[in-house]
């Protein structure tokens, strides 16, 4: 999604090669061998997204009331709520994580007294009231330009007024109780399970004159037709050639700057397609992105923005019982928590917020990004 006609012009110039040589259409590598100050005028750096997951910043102070219960505990709670006595609950749960409780807890929603699938209809069970994050440490950006009581302070950038209500809603789930760059387990699995087959996400930084400080660069976020390859550590293999999807709906072009080796964008809107089996369609509004360029050519950063919360919910709900019992995530609890903490995009009819502020951790590896027109151009550029 292009944010403005000016961005569209920038993009067209880049992609169509208007006024540029063919060489500019292929990303220079992330610079594994080059010091960060070694950019040449108008240099391009390409990256492939290695990891993309909820940016969690767990410290005990964030969850002073403790963490939310795991599934063996909340299933028993739900069974008791449904009227089973302790003996029956123990019997149903005796073979956990397998056993007789599964159909019962799956159908624990009630509509007119009749059981319904609670994952498809989360509103049919009462709000289990997940414990939210009460501390102030959280990744992201001040998206609304205000400093409110609900806002966080980013532990890396130090930015105040950080809007990240998704983390506030879910950050005390045991599965999320990690501090980036440590990976929260289920979000890690969501990304890891899909990235061998899903088109890779690409990031390109253009118009770089100085990798340390540059007040005018262009950032392109896009999608490839290729998937990542893994290295021997299971990460995305660095320096692979990845072809840009000519029909990508994920393309975003935004202006930005580099300060002390960290790329920061202006505000943008972006649509990012991932594997719909496990991840939502990301439709960020009011988004910002920062990316620290590392000496080894890799990059790390945070993408933050307002995201419709219902697709977020469905990315958990479609895993249903498996997500609940293995990841310990109370799925209807997620529904209620996201709904409660949503902080943007009010529905004109109901006044309920349809979007929630979020922050996502991004790890990226250097990549060679090739545009369709140039797909067969060989030997035009390299790290040499």
């Amino acid at each position, binding site marked *: 999604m292009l944010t403005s006609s000016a961005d569209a012009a920038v993009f067209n110039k880049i992609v169509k090669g208007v006024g540029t040589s063919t060489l500019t259409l292929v990303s220079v590598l992330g610079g594994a061998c080059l010091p960060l100050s070694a950019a040449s005028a108008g240099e391009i750096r390409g990256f492939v997204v290695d990891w993309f997951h909820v940016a969690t910043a767990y410290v005990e102070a964030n969850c002073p009331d403790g963490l939310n219960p795991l599934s063996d505990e909340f299933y028993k709670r739900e069974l008791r709520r449904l009227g089973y006595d302790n003996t029956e609950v123990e019997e149903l749960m005796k073979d956990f994580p397998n056993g007789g409780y599964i159909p019962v807890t799956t159908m624990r929603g009630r509509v007119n007294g009749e059981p319904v699938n609670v994952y498809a209809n989360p509103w049919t069970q009462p709000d289990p009231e997940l414990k939210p994050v009460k501390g102030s440490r959280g990744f992201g950006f001040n998206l609304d330009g205000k400093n409110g009581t609900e806002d966080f302070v980013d532990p890396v950038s130090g930015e105040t007024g950080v809007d990240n209500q998704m983390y506030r809603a879910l950050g005390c789930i045991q599965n999320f109780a990690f501090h980036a760059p440590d990976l929260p387990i289920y979000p890690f699995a969501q990304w890891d399970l899909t990235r061998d087959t899903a088109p890779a996400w690409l990031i390109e930084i253009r118009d770089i004159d100085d990798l340390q400080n540059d007040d005018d660069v262009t950032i392109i976020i896009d999608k490839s037709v290729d998937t990542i390859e893994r290295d021997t550590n299971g990460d995305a293999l*660095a320096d692979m*050639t990845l072809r840009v999807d000519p029909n990508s709906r994920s393309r975003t072009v935004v202006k930005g700057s580099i300060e002390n080796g960290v790329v920061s964008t202006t505000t943008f809107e972006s649509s990012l397609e991932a594997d719909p089996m496990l991840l939502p369609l990301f439709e960020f509004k009011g988004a910002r992105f920062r990316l620290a360029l590392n000496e080894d050519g890799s990059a790390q950063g945070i993408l933050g923005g307002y995201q419709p919360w219902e697709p977020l919910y469905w990315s958990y709900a479609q895993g249903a019982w498996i997500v609940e019992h293995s990841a310990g995530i109370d799925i209807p609890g997620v529904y209620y928590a996201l709904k409660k903490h949503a902080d943007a995009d009010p529905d004109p009819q109901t006044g309920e917020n349809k979007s929630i502020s979020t922050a996502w951790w991004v790890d990226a590896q250097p990549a*060679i990004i090739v545009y369709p027109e140039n797909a067969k*151009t060989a030997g035009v550029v390299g790290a040499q």
Partner: protein
Amino acid sequence: MIARKFGGGNELLTARTDNRIYGPRNCGPWLGRAVAVGAISIALSACAPGGADPQNEASFAPVDAGGPPVMRRLTEEQYKQVVADIFGPTVELGGRFEPDPRESGLLAVGAGQVSVTTSGLQQYDIIARSIAAQVTGEERRAAMIPCKPTNAQSADEACARQFLSLVGRLIYRRPLTEEELDARVQNAKNATEKLGDFYSGLEMSLAGMLVAPQFLFRQEITEPDPNNPGQQRLDAYSKASRLSFFLWNTAPDDQLLTAAENGDLHKRDGLAKQVGRMIASPKLKTGVRAFFEDMLEFDKFSELSKDAEIFPKFNFIAAEDAKEQTLRTIVNHLVSDGGDYRDLFTTRKTYLTRLLGALYRVPVTTPEGWESYEFSEDSRQAGILTHASFVALHSHPGRTSPTLRGKALREVLLCQKVPDPPGNVDFNIVQDTANPDFKTVRQRLDAHATEPMCVGCHKITDPIGLALENFDTIGGFRMTENGAQIDTSGQLDGVDFSDAVGLGQVVHDHPGLTSCLVNRVFSYGVGRTPTQSEKKWLDSYIEQSFAEKGYRVPQLLQRIATSEAFFQIANTEVEAAVDGLAVASSEFLQPEKKQ
């Protein structure tokens, strides 16, 4: 023997070059460096007009009668290729092969000095049974067996005989004798009677043929030479095998066996016709590929590993791709394009996969498989020395080794022998890549080479290997090591270069490069090191012929394969062995004394 010095000053790299006549194309840079007695006149003669005249080959031919006949175990690649040729490429081989030993730089020579161990025989048996079961199985029998038994539950001698004689000729690389065929047919009959199934009986007999020494070993048979009373010669089928494994790395096909049967291979015209046919065949690519895979010691890829923590890009697929990159480059350049052998060390054309593109950090867009690629003129990547196959194969798992790389270049490509290090060397300085006082391997080696026992050999190897320091342990390009700029300058036998591209050019022009190839090719074909007089013939006549043909490898193969020397057999093994030993021992480089 004339000891020659390449380069001035302290260089003292002696190499046996009796009567060597270097090719006329690159005399300039080397002429002024040939300083030892007699060398200048030799070099001048090399630069003179004229050259090898095939009609006068007799005057250049080896004065002795060649080496002994050789019995060589099929290499793993040959076994696989033969089976694929006879039974089709879809037949799968189970089991493991015994490692092929390397001798005088070649597995092809080592294959003549091995037997089969008990466990090796068990593996051959497993593989043979697997092949035989597939060939006679329901899925393939209609295509493989040219007849049907009158009753599938009982023996059919005629059908068994027809099949076994047909495949036996290809498996044994000659027609079976009556006794052999009778025994195999009887074997099939006995098994059929016990198992109650004709095809099972055939399977047992076929499996027996596939573990027979006549199959597993290339036995060269001699016979009295009617043209040279008192002399022996290879029989026609042995000649056919020698030719076929030399040019195609597989067993003779039907036409070649027929030519042997007709006696054509004993005739100059008949031999030339068959060699011409084989050189023109697409199978030549297989043969050239097999030779270079052997010469470049690519069998070592099977045990190549890298530190995954430091080099996460490198896995077994990358290793296979690296090997394949170089072989594709070689075969395409030498066979498809008919290129000059020396240009392999300067060419920027190659083939890459996406994985290799990541290794070299260049764009490769073909999602699966290979695409041709040409490194840019300003790239420091040129020639096969800069391929991952060379720099990775001759490095340690976690760090580069200019010493190993330099040693490999001298031994593999120039046929020089670098002495092994003494057993009590202290490698601490070299191995400590984190020492802030020695950030680059050049600095570490300089410090290490202050050890008197080390300096001599390191002067032979390191200046060459250091030229490749822009390529890390897995072949990735780098300009710095531990933050320090890498200096890739050096010299090879007195000729300076500034980087890997320059080194490639120096290797391209080095007289030892082509003479080494000529000797290796001959050794590969005959399965032994050349005798002294063969070496003289190779270093003079054949190398000159190679030069006149523009260093085209197919022409070199053709020249050797049609020569009398290629098939000549010594009357006594002792005579030949002593002669060969003398040549082998003369290839050692002498470590330079510390100045």
